[in-house]
């Protein structure tokens, strides 16, 4: 059972020096929802994902989780970012084992993701020599092996060939049907359509349109 009903972002601002990356962002994300953040480069999509996954602290505002009317601890997020978030001197298998152990999950549970993302051909090699696509697939497996309650994906199809992208879309579809909350950023419609996702468009750090409010 999920530990939250919804996550609320209220008045979230984030500045880097004089650059205002997020300006008064208000957003609700329901448990089990798929949410796609759209917008041009520099619109604030990645920063919003970083705040949601607690990689960065907002300059102002708050991120809270709720169960009914009661506050809940913020859920565990599995993150796939622009960087692969892996240790380059470990093999792919050792990286997966490390993150399973950190989350207190049986190491064997990573097998599902190893198969799903077809990692067998390279998982026993040191990560240093991986191609962009291999890093992205391993990064997805790493994000999922800790059994997150929210999957946060920053342009997850970048660097993947057609077959790998199809495999990722298929896994994400499965996860959606299993009730996992997925929040992602994207430049195109492929992922949005495949996930049948709610879309939020961002412009200069603000929420410009929200397909849920438009309904």
């Amino acid at each position: 059972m999920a530990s939250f009903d919804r996550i609320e972002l209220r008045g979230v601002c984030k500045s880097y020096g004089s650059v205002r990356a997020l300006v008064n962002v208000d957003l609700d994300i329901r448990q089990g929802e798929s949410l796609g953040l759209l917008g041009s480069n520099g619109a604030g999509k990645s920063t919003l994902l970083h705040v949601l996954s607690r990689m960065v602290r907002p300059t102002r505002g708050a991120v809270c989780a709720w169960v009914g009317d009661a506050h809940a601890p913020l859920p565990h997020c599995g993150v796939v970012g622009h960087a692969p978030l892996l240790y380059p001197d470990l093999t792919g298998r050792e990286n997966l084992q490390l993150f399973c152990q950190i989350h207190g999950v049986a190491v064997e549970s990573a097998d599902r993701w190893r198969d799903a993302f077809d990692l067998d051909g390279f998982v026993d090699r040191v990560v240093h020599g991986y191609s962009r696509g291999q890093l992205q697939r391993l990064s997805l497996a790493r994000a999922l092996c800790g059994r997150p309650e929210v999957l946060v994906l920053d342009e997850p199809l970048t660097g993947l060939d057609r077959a790998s992208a199809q495999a990722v879309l298929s896994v994400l579809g499965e996860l959606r049907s299993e009730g996992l909350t997925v929040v992602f950023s994207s430049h195109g419609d492929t992922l949005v359509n495949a996930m049948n996702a709610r879309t939020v468009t961002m412009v200069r750090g603000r929420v410009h349109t929200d397909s849920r409010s438009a309904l």
Partner: protein
Amino acid sequence: MKVSALHTWRILTLEYFRMEWRSKLTWVHSLLFGSLVIVVASISFFVHPGMGAEIAPGVLWLAIAFSGTLLLTGSWSREREMGALWALQTSQVPGVAIYLAKVVSTSVVLCVMVVWFGLLSAVLLQVPLSDFPVAVWGALLLGALGWVAAGHVFAAVTVQSRARDLVLTLVLFPLLTPSLLAGTVATRALFQGAAFVDVQGWFGLQILFDGLFLTLGSVLFDPLTRE
């Protein structure tokens, strides 16, 4: 499942040891650089047989300082290269577990190097091993621990800086001056035949600095490394 900070620390420490061993470039580089300092000093300053014991303290501390800084730089470039530190942070790994795992793994590697530097000095500077009292080894190993404990705190401070490697060196050397001074003076006195009781004040200062930086690092690692 919630995992304790102690369990996470243990897992990370083992993995950091594995990474230190795998990234041969870092430790071989550090070992060779420190050894080079001793080799060059042994050639440059060799005047008479008694000279070795006079220059050995300074040479040993230079080797520790340079090798320690190289090990710290390697340890942090590993965290930053593919953003692994942020993966740990989004996994809600406590900062104290990450900090202490880094301190233990780097310290053990540096302490092994210190033993090698001591043996190399004994041979090249012609200081008999019998002239290396236990207290000298104690001062050198305390110094190595202090260097690493402080180094990881300042590396955490500079993690958001673009010129981080330069900043680390610029900030680390001046702030470690008191600890370095205490270690060098204690080592020099011991080589000149002083009893432990004569230098225990310097040892106290070293232990104080080590404790201070270990506490600061454990408490401040999280706030320092998150944007």
